[in-house]
């Protein structure tokens, strides 16, 4: 979807990827250095004492780096960083490295061997200890970089606003990025619904993934990033930067007039809601002009904990999340963990196919105690804050599962129970699945994954995971029709709802609410306000009669209001 206004000939070099978080930005490149390995051809150590002094200095430099970071980090990150500082200064570790140096192993090889000695020990202990191996190896990798005199791996400290470029970003790296310093994110790997993509959209940072050769861009090179078109322009001309600036201003001017509840031009209400993943998100989103939360992911409450969080701890967190929304609705998704997002205290062991395994509600069925505590905590927090709390279960496939869940929700004193529609089976049988529930909510990311049989985390399969795939739209249509027959509302809480064109299609298919990264709400509101419900239905029909995802998108774009498409 190239912008005809962009003078392509002026661009020095354009690299195409997949835009996963909208907006444009330009600035200097900062490369996230890859993990460091000990070189295979390292010369052996001849003077063990001198080598040990150097290695000790490398670990001390690492400790100082980490200490400096800890001083600026928030509470959770600080705890992790302080433990890492202790590892870097650990005498047993240094002793182990010294042993290898004495045997004549090169400095980098000895650091690696010393770290791995402890890593093996911790892996053997399993559980909590096995998880700490990541921290241990991170310290080792940093010390190795100091020994070898190469850049320290990970996101460097940003001193000026920059475009962060990486092969791929770990969720932890994306989460700790300084929002004020990151203009845009560009990765060589990653996919449409990877964690990088979701977090970038959540933070309102333009992002493009699957950009060929991204990691070869020299640090400091100025690039222009177009998160809508999925383009990265290297060394953009003044003219291009000006054009992008004009586009940003035009968009800002159009959005300045947009506000209030979501509604089509003919007055059909479509609630515009936020997707949030924690207290910080809740405070941000609560301050914005939107109608509540359509998806509160509760994993963060559990994932970093060593033991099941207590009722009191959960009540406190939920209260902090609900408070910013006053009497607005907050739709809570219960714990969505499993083999791919293992819990230290409820590990069911590795599985061949985590995406098809005991995750979501299936984990809750094995550990109903976890679900009951969570539901009770949600009920207490809802009563205390007066928030309109509605609870839904992830990974529901059958009517029995939906019934089991809604019964538990009501037994715990919560008024409204719903289910996520992300398994095609539940979508096709929505009328029956929703009988004892109050609402359904389409999780389009997983629904696309399961409809197209394409792993969400497999960046190369992004085309199959395109939510414009007509088959995915057919499944969504079936779910909306089933919900209609059952007399239940069906919302959308996947990334698809935040795409202004796709949002029109979803409303045309029958979606009653759209939940998205809060930064996407204004443009979606504007898109709805320019179209009537019959027009949305027509657009949906156009998309479903297309043969391919590309044709579906193009047909809808061509038929949508020019007032909207001029801004895209």
């Amino acid at each position, binding site marked *: 979807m190239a912008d005809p206004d962009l003078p392509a000939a002026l661009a020095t070099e354009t690299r195409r990827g997949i835009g996963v978080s909208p907006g444009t930005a330009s600035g200097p490149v900062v490369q996230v250095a890859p993990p460091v390995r000990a070189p295979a051809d390292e010369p052996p150590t001849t003077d063990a004492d001198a080598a040990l002094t150097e290695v000790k200095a490398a670990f001390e430099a690492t400790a100082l780096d980490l200490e400096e970071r800890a001083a600026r980090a928030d509470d959770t990150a600080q705890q992790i960083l302080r433990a890492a500082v*202790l*590892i870097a200064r650990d*005498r*047993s*570790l240094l002793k182990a490295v010294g042993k290898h140096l004495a045997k004549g192993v090169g400095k980098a090889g000895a650091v690696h061997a010393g770290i791995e000695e402890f890593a093996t*020990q911790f892996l053997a202990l399993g559980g909590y*200890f096995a998880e700490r191996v990541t921290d241990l190896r991170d310290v080792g990798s940093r010390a190795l970089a100091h020994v070898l005199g190469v850049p320290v791996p990970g996101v460097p400290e940003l001193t000026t606003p920059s475009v962060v470029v990486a092969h791929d970003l770990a969720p932890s790296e994306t989460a700790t990025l300084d929002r004020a310093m990151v203009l845009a994110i560009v990765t060589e790997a990653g996919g449409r619904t990877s964690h990088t993509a979701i977090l970038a959209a959540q933070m309102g940072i333009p992002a493009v993934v699957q950009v060929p050769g991204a990691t070869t861009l020299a640090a400091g090179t100025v690039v222009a990033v177009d998160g809508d078109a999925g383009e990265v322009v290297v060394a953009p001309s003044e003219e291009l930067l000006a054009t992008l600036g004009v586009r940003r201003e035009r968009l800002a001017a159009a959005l300045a007039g947009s506000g209030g509840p979501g509604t089509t031009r003919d007055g059909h209400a479509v609630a515009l809601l936020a997707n949030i993943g924690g207290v910080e998100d809740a405070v941000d989103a609560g301050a914005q002009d939107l109608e509540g939360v359509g998806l509160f992911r509760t994993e963060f409450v559990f994932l970093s904990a060593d033991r099941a969080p207590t009722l009191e701890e959960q009540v406190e967190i939920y209260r902090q999340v609900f408070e910013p929304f006053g009497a607005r609705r907050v739709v809570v998704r219960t714990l969505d963990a499993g083999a791919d997002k293992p819990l230290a205290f409820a590990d069911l062991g590795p599985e061949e196919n985590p995406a098809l395994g005991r995750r979501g509600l299936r984990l809750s069925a094995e550990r109903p105690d976890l679900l009951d505590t969570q539901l009770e905590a949600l009920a207490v927090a809802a009563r205390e804050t007066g928030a309109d709390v509605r609870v839904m279960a992830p990974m529901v496939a059958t009517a029995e599962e939906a019934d089991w869940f809604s019964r538990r929700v009501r037994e715990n004193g919560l008024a409204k129970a719903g289910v996520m529609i992300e398994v095609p089976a539940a979508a096709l049988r929505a009328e029956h699945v929703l009988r004892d529930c109050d609402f359904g909510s389409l999780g389009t990311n997983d629904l696309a994954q399961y409809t197209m049989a394409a792993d969400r985390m497999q960046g190369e399969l992004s085309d199959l995971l395109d939510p414009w795939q007509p088959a995915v739209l057919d499944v969504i249509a079936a779910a909306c029709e089933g919900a209609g027959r059952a007399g239940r509302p069906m919302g959308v809480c996947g990334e698809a709802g935040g795409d202004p064109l796709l949002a029109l299609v979803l409303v045309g298919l029958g979606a009653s609410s759209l939940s998205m990264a809060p930064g996407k709400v204004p443009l979606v509101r504007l898109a709805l306000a320019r179209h009537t419900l019959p027009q949305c239905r027509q657009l949906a029909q156009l998309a479903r009669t297309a043969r391919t995802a590309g044709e579906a998108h193009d047909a809808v774009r061509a038929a949508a209001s020019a007032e909207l498409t001029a801004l895209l």
Partner: protein
Amino acid sequence: MAQRTVTIASSVGLHARPAALFVEKASSSGLDVEIARPGEDPVDATSILGVMALGAKHGEEVVLTAEGDGADAALDELVALLATDLDAE
């Protein structure tokens, strides 16, 4: 040589945050402090990796030893630390 026996009060045992706090305190004493299960080989109490690998759980007894000036005072502080449920704070 000063010696103390204490029961681990932290509900998660002696790892994670409690282990880090313990190691930080032991290091700041500037003494050679060791920690062991009764009757087993001691590990360096200033080594986070050693202390974590010890894997002392909630309710287990551990023996602390230290040498040098101020060893008694240093051990008293460490005992107080281990006898508190650090994770509850």
